[in-house]
Each structure stands twice: as structure tokens, then as C-alpha cells.
């Protein structure tokens, strides 16, 4: 067990804080909703009713989609774009998908390479892009979830105000949908850009996200060792 925690500590730690934050969000969201219901003289929501409501789920989904978009774009952009000096980037001149030799595919696959790589053909091609494909699928799915939940919430509000219901297509072209979407996207792009640029000149000793403390500013990740 100790070895498991040592070897998988990063993913386990983030799993724990993710669950804690999600549970915290559910209680804070319930409290905020019930405050609003009380203002209107309505009875409070039960916990389970709230966490299974579209208003809670749309708040979760809109944050998920922006996170998956962030990584989808970052993975895709770092194939072809570089930032000199950033540990998040390949060095200038290394743009592109790399050779079979450097990527250990085709004739260069090794006995310890993943099975889909050793199999070659379409399996190797799909596996070569699997991280981007999965992040893209998760982004599209969570954005769809946001749109579906958002449409339900919008129609609940429309009903309260005697307004006609909206179709899903009307909702995804509405200001509310794009306001929710873009307010999340801008913060993700800001954070990624800041990380790329700040890590050129700033260091954190011991972090895999940083160059070694004494590495020159102009060196990218693969040159730092």
C-alpha cells in the first residue's frame, strides 16, 4: 500500500482534492439556492434534489468542458508551436509530429512499447493520437452536457417568468450559453499562457513543471538536463 501511494501519489492526491471540492461545491451551491428560494418564500431544496438538478450539473459541466478544452488545445498546439525557454515546449526547430525513430513507432518499436504500437497499422496511428482524441471527446461531451443542462435551467426560468420555452438550438446560440462558455475559456487560456511564459524565467526547485533552477532561461524542456 505504501508503494502504491508513493508511485501513484500525484493522481491519488488530485482525486482526493477533486472529490472534496465537488462535494464542497454541492453544499455551497445548495446553500446559495436555498437562500434564493427563501427570498421568494419557497421551501428549501433537499440535498439529493439539488445535486441531481440541471442547475448544479450545468455548473459542473461548464467547468469540465473548459478544462478539457484547455488540455486538448495545449496538446495540439505544442505539436506545431514552440515557446523558446519554456519547459512546457519543445525546442525551436522540433515542431511537428517527429520521426518514427524518435517516437519509437513502426520499425523502431521496442519490446516494451505499448501493444497497439507493436501491432502497427491503424492501431498504431490511433494510439499515436489517443491523448488528443480522448481529451477532444471529453471536451465535446462536457460542452454538450453544459448545453443540455443550461437549456433546462433557461426553460425553468422562462416558465417562472411566463416566457415561451427555448429549443436546444435557440439556447446554444443565446448570450447565456456563450457567456457561461467564454468566461471559462478566457480563464483557461490565461492560465496556460501564463504558465508557458512565466516558466521561462521563474523556477520551482523539485517540480517536473519547472526547468532545473540553474538551467539557462533560453533552454526549453528537452534541453534542460
Amino acid at each position, binding site marked *: 500500500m505504501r*508503494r*502504491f501511494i508513493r*508511485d*501513484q501519489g500525484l*493522481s*491519488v492526491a488530485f*482525486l482526493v482534492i477533486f472529490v472534496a471540492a465537488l462535494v464542497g461545491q454541492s453544499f455551497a451551491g445548495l446553500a446559495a439556492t436555498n437562500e434564493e428560494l427563501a427570498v421568494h418564500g419557497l421551501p428549501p431544496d433537499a440535498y439529493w434534489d439539488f445535486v*441531481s*438538478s*440541471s442547475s448544479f*450539473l*450545468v455548473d*459542473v*459541466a461548464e467547468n*469540465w468542458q473548459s478544462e478539457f478544452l484547455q488540455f486538448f488545445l495545449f496538446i495540439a498546439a505544442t505539436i506545431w508551436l514552440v515557446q523558446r525557454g519554456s519547459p512546457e515546449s519543445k525546442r525551436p526547430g522540433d515542431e511537428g509530429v517527429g520521426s518514427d525513430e524518435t517516437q519509437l513507432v513502426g520499425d523502431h518499436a521496442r519490446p516494451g512499447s505499448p501493444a497497439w504500437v507493436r501491432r502497427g497499422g491503424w492501431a498504431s496511428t490511433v494510439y499515436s493520437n489517443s491523448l488528443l482524441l480522448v481529451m477532444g471527446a*471529453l471536451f465535446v*461531451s*462536457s460542452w*454538450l*452536457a*453544459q448545453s*443540455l*443542462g443550461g*437549456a*433546462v435551467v433557461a426553460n425553468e426560468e422562462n416558465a417562472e417568468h411566463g416566457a415561451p420555452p427555448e429549443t436546444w438550438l435557440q439556447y446554444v446560440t443565446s448570450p447565456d450559453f456563450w457567456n457561461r462558455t467564454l468566461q471559462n475559456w478566457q480563464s483557461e487560456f490565461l492560465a496556460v499562457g501564463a504558465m508557458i511564459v512565466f516558466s521561462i524565467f521563474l523556477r520551482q526547485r523539485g517540480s517536473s513543471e519547472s526547468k532545473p533552477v540553474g538551467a539557462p532561461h533560453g533552454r526549453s524542456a528537452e534541453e534542460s538536463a
Partner: protein
Amino acid sequence: MAIPVEEGDQMSDQQDDDAGSTRGMRAVFWVWMSLIVAGLVVMIVVPLTAR
């Protein structure tokens, strides 16, 4: 004769370590993937079935 035995033991320990780590990596991978997919299914199905 002691050296080959120790090397064999070390090799065996290393293989046990690698096998344990591989199982651990697969475990965290599938926990994360299952959690995310289950969450997405809930977030898509709930609004679709809302009246």
C-alpha cells in the same frame, strides 16, 4: 555462487516492483476514466430526462 542468486533475487524484486507499478498505473487510469465518463453520462442523461 552467491552473486548469481542475489542478482536473480534483485531481478525478481525488480520484476515484482514493475508488475505492481503497472497494476497501480492501470488502476488509477481506469478510476479516473470511469469517474469522468460516469460524470459525463449523468450530466447528459439528467437534462435529457428532465421534464
